[in-house]
């Protein structure tokens, strides 16, 4: 059972994956996400941090025994238990499949749709429209596959969307998602699709 410290900035959906996995596996994960232990933009540039985590990325995990790993999917794997990792090569391959599909298929359109609304990146009407259609396509594909299955890693990449833009009318078409939120606690689902406000 892994025990250790997770360095991240607050509200980091990438860290949620590992924290949810730890809830299931019972791993003891101590989160450092605020001063004095953690200053995003400074802590990750100190020589001692870069020596442990050369990419300087968050989240980063340091096991009590000194084992260091970065990349949220790798941390999630490490704090997981055998069952959630996939106890057969087929099960483990399918976990890897949906993890990879989440990162390559969902994060880009989710960011392209929501970041401009949050003021993180510039707004581009066509890019937003493209992202919205891509999200609809991906959700449709997932919805067909999520019957009877739980994909926690997927839900963390959907957080932005459900908090900002996917209003009930949008996600009614994908009924299999609602069970996921039980693990994340009350996530305020978007009531009204947020629009870019210049």
């Amino acid at each position, binding site marked *: 059972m892994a025990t250790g410290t997770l360095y991240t*900035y*607050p509200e*980091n959906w990438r860290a949620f994956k590992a924290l949810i996995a730890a809830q299931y596996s019972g791993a003891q994960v101590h989160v450092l996400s*605020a001063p004095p232990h953690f*200053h*995003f*933009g400074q802590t990750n540039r100190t020589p001692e941090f870069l020596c442990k985590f050369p990419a300087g990325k968050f989240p980063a995990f340091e096991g009590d025994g000194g084992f260091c790993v970065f990349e949220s999917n790798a941390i999630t794997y490490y704090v997981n238990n055998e069952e959630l990792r996939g106890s057969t090569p087929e099960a483990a391959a399918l976990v890897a499949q949906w993890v990879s599909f989440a990162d*390559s*298929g969902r*994060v*880009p359109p989710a*960011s*392209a749709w929501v*970041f401009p609304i*949050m*003021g*993180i*990146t510039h707004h581009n009407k066509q890019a937003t429209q493209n992202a919205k259609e891509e999200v609809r396509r991906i959700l449709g594909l997932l919805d067909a596959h999520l019957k009877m299955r739980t994909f926690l890693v997927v839900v963390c990449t959907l957080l932005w969307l459900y908090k900002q833009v996917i209003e009930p009318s949008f996600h009614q078409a994908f009924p299999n998602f609602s069970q996921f939120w039980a693990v994340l606690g009350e996530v305020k689902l978007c009531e009204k699709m947020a629009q870019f406000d210049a």
Partner: protein
Amino acid sequence: MATNFLVHEKIWFDKFKYGDAERRFYEQMNG
């Protein structure tokens, strides 16, 4: 030969831009 297929590849070319913007956003948020 490979280019005919690669044109269909979904690559996040703007990853760099989004990653940078997200990092700046959270650095500001975290003072």
